[in-house]
């Protein structure tokens, strides 16, 4: 049996073994994956980076626990970026099952800021969490008039006017941009009602499954950036120099994909070499 033939008849259990090893290694060996974030992801990052301390930004955490793996890392990295830049961050959620989770995210990142940046953003002064209200389309429209229409109080029941950072903040005119992290069609409403009617500067983070549907909005300029799936999340963490769970997951993905691709290449090489060898033996006959 020649080398080719042996390769072509390779027992699939070798594939399984190699894949297992290369999925386990990155869990223990931490190394930086060289990522090259595409323009649509860099656009989001640069937009936030270019804001001045004290500018207002609205981050809408419109995903439910089902999309946690892909969108939570973006939320974490982005919130930390905003806090570190001393922006005033308004957060809310348009997903019914995501209210609790979003609140925890907003608070946890504020806590971790103390460790990494030496200060702790103060609720009501540096950030506010408005909570959840039903009918996303109406909420988005209402906020275009006045935040107080859909959200008379924040998540804890404090009226918006008694929250220091919300004084004088009326509607989208007072904030620099909106970033919606969503796993579904809430993004469509943000485009139609937020950007379409009030000209809000808008960017999205979407799950891997949904992201392809929203690229046309990026191409037409209705949104200024888009972060897609686990890969986008890892790229965002990379830009923020803040590697988290998405980077970890990406390490495994890169290894696993590389294994599959290498096996495909080996298979094809063996196939071609084998065919050439066969052709040669036929010629010599």
């Amino acid at each position, binding site marked *: 049996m020649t080398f080719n033939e042996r390769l072509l008849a390779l027992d699939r259990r070798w594939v399984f073994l190699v894949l297992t090893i290369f999925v386990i290694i990155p869990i223990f060996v931490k190394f930086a994956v060289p990522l090259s974030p595409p323009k649509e992801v860099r656009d989001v990052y640069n937009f936030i980076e270019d804001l001045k301390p004290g500018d207002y930004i609205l981050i809408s955490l419109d995903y439910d626990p089902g999309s946690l793996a892909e969108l939570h890392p973006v939320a974490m990295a982005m919130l930390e970026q905003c806090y570190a830049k001393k922006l005033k961050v308004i957060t809310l959620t348009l997903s019914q099952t995501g209210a609790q989770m979003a609140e925890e995210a907003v608070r946890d990142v504020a806590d971790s800021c103390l460790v990494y940046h030496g200060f702790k953003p103060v609720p009501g002064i540096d950030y506010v969490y408005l909570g959840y209200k039903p009918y996303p389309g109406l909420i988005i*429209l209402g906020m275009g*008039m*006045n935040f*107080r*229409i859909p959200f008379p109080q924040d998540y804890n029941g404090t009226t918006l*006017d008694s929250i220091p950072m*919300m004084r*004088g903040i*009326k509607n989208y005119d007072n904030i620099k941009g909106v970033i919606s992290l969503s796993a579904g069609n809430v993004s469509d409403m943000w485009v139609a009602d937020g950007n379409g009617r009030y000209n809000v500067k808008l960017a999205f983070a979407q799950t891997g499954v949904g992201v392809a549907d929203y690229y046309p909005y990026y191409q037409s300029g209705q949104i200024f950036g888009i972060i897609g799936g686990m890969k986008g999340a890892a790229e965002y963490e990379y830009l923020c120099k803040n590697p988290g769970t998405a980077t970890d997951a990406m390490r495994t993905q890169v290894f696993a994909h590389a294994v599959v691709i290498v096996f495909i290449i080996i298979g094809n090489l063996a196939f071609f070499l084998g065919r050439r060898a066969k052709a040669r033996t036929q010629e010599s006959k």
Partner: protein
Amino acid sequence: MKYIILLFLTCLSLCLSQAILAQTASSDPPAEAALVPSEPPAPPGNLTLKDLPNDDGHGIAVKWDLSPDDGAGAKSVISYDIYRSLSPDAPDSLWKKAGTVVLGVKSYADKGNRESDNDDYLPKKTNLYYRVYAVGAGVRSVAAAAGPVQAYDNWFNTLKVPELIFCVVFLILTVRFINMAKRGIDLYVRPLAGIEAIDEAIGRATEMGKPILYCLGIGTAGDIATIASFTILGRVARKVAEYQTSMIVPCIDPIVMTIAQETVKAGYADAGRPDAYKEDSVYYVTSQQFPYVAAVNGTIIREKPATNIYLGYFLAESLLLAETGVMAGSIQIAGTDQVSQLPFFVVACDYTLLGEELYAASAYLGREPLLLGTLKAQDYLKAIALVCIFALLALRVFTGADVIHKPFDMPWW
């Protein structure tokens, strides 16, 4: 006396607390962004009501002209609220909120519930009255009111004319081609590799002395793909009986199992070997997707069938089954109408029936004129679809108009 002092003290403390509260409030200058109830927007105009067409008699179509304040200005409308009641001058509490629409929308299909004990019950053939409010920032306009109107049910849904035309055309074509086929006119059908492989595969199983595994997928008897699979199963069973080999049919649903048993039994009877049929060869495993796959995988790896046939409705288990079959060294023929699973079958199986080919397979296997007739009718409809796309595209290119954008969508107003 004691009580009077107590009362006095209570009053005093109340007044004091009020004063203190007022103080703190006034020390906090009202923010300019605070929500001041602005002037109410102008009401919507020209409210008209009509029975909702094409329904079961519990719906009203409501239509109005936009409020002058719709879209811009300090008094801008945010939404419209639609209310319904059984009497024009009922108190507010008896007006049921039928729905809300955002600004810019000027109609609403109020589809009420048909059960009288439901909160949203909309009675049939009864006078109903409507009010529509334009809602601004914290305030709403005066109501535009109209009524009475009555809801009736309809006996034909005019929106479904396209489907009706389609069905009639299909029926006419089918009958025509069946008649042609019966008269003995030869209807050509192109070869399908997957179908020709079935014959071969059964022969191979006989040579190897190993069974054939036929998997109907994870659909219920209500899925058309499963029904199509039954029609193929009958013919496969007949061939299996003719070749005197054996078959295994694990099922995910008791009803599917029952129908499959009847089908296989009939196949054996057709082949003239009803005694060879064993009831236990078609059996029920469990009704859940992954346990079913685990069991079928076990069967494949232990029985090492010569051929695995997967036809029907499949989800993520497609690759689990197909790869296990490769491990067992079986020839594999698959087919499903689930586009998302076709890639896995195409990659892992020897032959794959793509989408419509699954439905055509029984005609191929049976070669009966009746079945070939429907196949021909299917082709004619495909041709009609092609012509439709071409013609309407040409119309669009030449007129440049968007009027034909969705030619089958008809407005309900």
